[in-house]
């Protein structure tokens, strides 16, 4: 049984560019959440998707947007990248809405 997968593993962008990160949930999971983890910090909740709708959102600007597809996979898009967006981006999936299983993350570096 494959766990949560994310792509790409690493990404380097320059300020002002746009980036798309991808996530495939565990088999049987229909809910996907995204988190940002800055170096030395705990993960911060960005948003959660369920039934292709954004169900809950954290304190992140509109530059952060997402999408969930009918097969429950998800994308995180970040526009107009800032240096401060450099972080590990984690995707988590759930079947009960509470217990979240995390992927390996995508390391984004903004230069």
């Amino acid at each position, binding site marked *: 049984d494959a766990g949560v997968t994310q792509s790409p593993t690493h990404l380097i962008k320059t300020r002002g560019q746009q980036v798309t990160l991808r996530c495939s949930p565990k088999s049987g999971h229909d809910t996907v*959440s995204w988190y940002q983890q800055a170096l030395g*910090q*705990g*993960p911060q909740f960005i948003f*959660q998707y369920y039934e292709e709708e954004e169900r809950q959102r954290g304190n992140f600007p509109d530059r952060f947007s997402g999408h969930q597809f009918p097969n429950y996979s998800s994308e995180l898009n970040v526009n107009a990248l800032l240096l401060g967006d450099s972080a590990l981006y*984690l995707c988590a999936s759930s079947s009960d809405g*509470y217990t*979240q299983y995390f*992927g390996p993350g995508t*390391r984004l570096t903004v230069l």
Partner: protein
Amino acid sequence: AQSVTQPDIHITVSEGASLELRCNYSYGATPYLFWYVQSPGQGLQLLLKYFSGDTLVQGIKGFEAEFKRSQSSFNLRKPSVHWSDAAEYFCAGNNQGGKLIFGQGTELSVKP
């Protein structure tokens, strides 16, 4: 405001010694509580969770945690630490079926 606090930023224990990592929560009602472990540059692995019922919960890798409502705590324990347990440990709470609120993490070092 809802919050999860891990008072210890860094803990060092000797291999074979016992371990206790502290976690306190502040929520209007008792949240669901979780412990995760993260190795450098990796994602988070779920160690255990508490929803209700028995206040002592068992997890993977020999870890357990005890929920104490009177102290708003959910401390993680292991009777005998192995060198492979060295990692970052995060406590987290969730009471809305969505947003996990994490503590700042405790880095565990293991001395040979």
